[in-house]
């Protein structure tokens, strides 16, 4: 059964990039003829896209944020405005391939899997690096810290993996290209603890996995990721790195339920601090302090992380 979906694209003011993303999406929507809707969340904060969309892509709905909020809140605004129960979250530097939405909806709505499917990612290819897919992540703990690795599976883009006909289980669905239920997202949007960006999608998927849901990658659905429109291209590298590493720590503190792993992490963290102090290095100290500051801010705002009730992978709530 084919189901209509809402495609939600949070975007900054890069019109050219957005136009390149929208064209294949609209082709696909037209081809499906199911009443899919396309929503662009204008997160430029200046209303830079509204007129452009009305002029160039009249069928696209524009949800305008009065100020720049970042990816997570922008996506939430788009999902709140969406009419369909299923939505495809998409970055504007993603180019969708043919048949993607049919495949993803089929996988998401499969009823055969226990717990149901929380989110499905397409097979994300980097142009020119076809062997390095982005959408088969796994989460491991190395030296006491959570680390994301990308599995390398023998598979052909556009075809089902023989061992995983219903989709390949992954640690998380990429926030920039995933299909999920609107009701799920509205019930538990991206955790603002991870603002401004990165690790929020990992957190969401891990929470779902902990609750017994499935997170899958469907290699039949293929997209290209052009690595242009993300926030990383607009801010200094050290800021991006600091955000990633701060959130890595916050993620660890939120999700390391296993007491041994938690101990390992704390010891590793303490050791890092001492090493940095002895070597007169600073980067990791700064990341730690950024994470601690954010945690403290959440405490003060009454939004403390429920570490005592944290769940780990494979531990249903």
């Amino acid at each position: 059964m084919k189901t209509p979906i809402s495609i939600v694209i949070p975007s900054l003011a890069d019109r050219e990039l957005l136009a390149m993303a929208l064209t294949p999406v609209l082709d696909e929507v037209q081809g499906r003829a199911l009443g899919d809707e396309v929503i662009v969340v204008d997160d430029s904060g200046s209303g830079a896209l509204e007129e452009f969309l009305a002029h160039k892509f009249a069928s696209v709905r524009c949800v305008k944020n009065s100020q720049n909020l970042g990816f997570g809140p922008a996506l939430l605004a788009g999902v709140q405005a969406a009419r369909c129960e299923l939505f495809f979250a998409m970055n504007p530097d993603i180019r969708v391939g043919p048949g993607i939405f049919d495949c993803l909806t089929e996988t998401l709505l499969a009823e055969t899997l226990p717990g149901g499917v929380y989110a499905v990612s397409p097979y994300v290819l980097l142009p020119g690096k076809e062997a390095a897919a982005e959408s088969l992540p796994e989460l491991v703990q190395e030296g006491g810290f959570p680390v994301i690795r990308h599995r390398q599976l023998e598979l052909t883009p556009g075809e089902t993996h023989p061992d995983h006909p219903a989709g390949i289980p992954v640690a998380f669905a990429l926030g920039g290209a995933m299909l999920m239920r609107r009701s799920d997202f509205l019930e538990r949007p991206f955790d603002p603890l991870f603002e401004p960006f990165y690790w929020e999608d990992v957190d969401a998927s891990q929470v779902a996995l902990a609750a017994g849901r499935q997170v899958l990658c469907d290699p039949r659905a293929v997209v290209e990721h052009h690595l242009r429109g993300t926030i990383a291209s607009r801010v200094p590298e050290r800021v991006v790195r600091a955000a990633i590493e701060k959130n890595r720590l916050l993620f660890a503190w939120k999700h390391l339920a296993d007491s041994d792993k938690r101990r390992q992490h704390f010891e590793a963290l303490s050791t890092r601090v001492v090493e940095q102090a002895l070597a007169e290095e600073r980067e990791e100290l700064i990341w730690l302090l950024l994470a601690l500051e954010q945690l403290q801010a959440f405490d003060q705002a009454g939004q403390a992380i429920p570490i005592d009730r944290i769940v780990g992978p494979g531990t249903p709530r």
Partner: protein
Amino acid sequence: MRIALCLHAFPPQSRTGVETYTEALARALAGRGHDLHIFAPRRDDSREHLSQTSEEQKHYKITWLALGRDPDTGAERRARHGAAAAFGRFLDREQPQVVHFQHILKLGWELIDEARERGLVTVYSAHDPFPVTNDYTLLSADLSPLDPGDLVAAARNERALGLLDRAFEAHDGFLPPGCGDQALRREVERVLHGEVPGEKDRDDLTQAMARLALELDERRAAVSRCDRVEAPTAFLADLLGAQGLRAPVACRPCGHDVEHLSEVVAVDGQHQGPLRVLFLGGLFEHKGAHILLDALPLCAGQGAAGVALTLRGSRGSSDYGAHLASRAADLGATLGGPYERHELPALLAAADLVALPSIWPENAPFVIREAFAAGRPVIASDTPALRESVRDGVDGRLVDLGDAAAWAACLCELARDRDELAELCRGVRPPKTTAEDARELEQIYTDLAEHHSARRTRARARQPAHLAAFSQALEALEALPTGELVERALAGLAQLASRLGQQPMGLTQALVSAEGLRERLAARERTADWRAETERHGRAARADLRAGLADREQALSALEARQGQLSRELESVAGERDWLRRSSVDLQAELAWTGESLDDRRAHLTEAQARLRSADDGLQAALAERDDLCSALAQRESELRALRLDHAKRDESSSAHDELRRAYEPLCAAHEALGAAYNSLRGAHEALQLHESWLRGELLRVFEVVQNEDSGDCEASDEIESLVAQAFEGLQRWSTELDWRAGEMAAATEESQGLGARLLPSALQRRADSWRKPSRPSGEAPS
């Protein structure tokens, strides 16, 4: 404001100009409420190479970078591997807002980038041309001038210094005058100025040039990246610009800590003792103390009271100092060792003037300001830089560089003329003080810091708005000194421990529990060594590449020149070819046109020939005509001659003519009367003719009547006969009158003929003749 001053050495280890200046500046800035931190290297075998130790002084803090071993190469003497990383740690630890480089000798240009990468305000004060040349005295090893832009000379000088390294245990970069054996001197001069003998030597020289070019390029570029570059003289500022420093160089004289010299008593210009000349400064070759010693014997016997010379300063590491001491002793000069700051007032008080006989271009020597602060004039070598400090004849004298005789003449003149000396003393003005300098720098630092802050704000504004808070938090943490970061991190760990249900770890526990820590630190040391080694290899490789590049560039230049020549030739040939092509086309067109026009021309020729013939005929006719005309002309000429003659005659008969004219006038009147008579006669004649016609008509009708009468009409014949008779009577009267008139006319004609023969022209004559035979109307006369 947190300010770091970075330089190559610092008191008490070294007390030459830059070090002394920096120390005074640090005190002055600290006195204005700023946190001052000095970063300087020093030789310290007791500590680990490149380790850092900090000392708190009264006004500032010093971090010493330990240099634990001798550098391997000249390049390493100028920039020690690992110094930049150590400086980076210093910056992180102390978090200055401003880094002011006073010199980067021994440290290296990478220090500048360490500061810039951290977003700090960077200022570079050039106290000599080191940013653009290694030979910052601008002298070669034999004390000959060295052009800072001449890489060949620089590479040769580097080789000459290698000779000195091998010949002397220590030296200051020069072959001291009067020292060294002659063979070494000859070898140094050959290396500096002679032919390069073999191919290997040439290759070595090329490689050395490439290495130097790379080193200088990097240093120039790094200094240019500073937020501000300044020099104390326009001479140095211009030199740096001319030698490729891309940043604008501001000219800002340094201030001097000379308060302690203001109480020095003025010179007694009238004292009769010898002129007291003081030399202050390092006893190094380029400072030229030997010039003064050379001048001393020349002063003897010049009728002056004499010159007493005192030399004070630290000796260098070469034999030069011993050489000076020996000569000073021979000449009766006093040569003392280095002096402390507090000794300076007494030294200056005991001198009439200060001598600065430098044989290098100099810059802005501090000793001049110290002398001026004590009211002493300065006799200095005449160089562009020193001209900016000493006003010749106002507060001192300028003497030809290195000219001992000129020095002797100047000193003797001042020894003799104490009034002149007093005048120079009066011309001295106090120098800029360190306090003024600090005030200026404070403003410069503040302006640059504001500029940086504005730039950071602009950069943040370009980021998406939702990142502002995070970026600000990150920057705030980045601005914390490393020590504070560690403290905060440890405190944070303690909080986190309780939150995660863990026991907080003490430092010892962390060290013990971190099994791989020592190994990792050792690995990092190894990595640092490896990196330094790799950098060395990299530099060597880059130098080799640069040398190869130089060769290739040379070859390329030759090829380009050849290519240029060939291109020009080709261009010329192509031009010629094009010209030929165009010519060919033109010729073909011309040929076609010529073919076409040939027929036309032939037709034209035929036509022309016909015309020619016709013209020939015409010519013949014209010739005949010409002949006719000639004959006519001859005839006309003869006529003209005749006319002229006639004219002459006429002139002669003009009086007769007038007479005739007077006679003619009545004749004309008579003629007019004749004409009127004639017209009257003519009218009468016509009337007669009409009448005759009428009569003829009447007669004809009469004859008809007669004939008709014959046929029976007898009653009218009487009347007719009467009419006929009347008609005949009338005719007879008219005929008589006519006869009379004819006689009158004949008489008048005869008279007029007589006159006409004499007076009238031929036409009038003919007309008059015609009157005698007047034409009659046609018709029969009445019978």
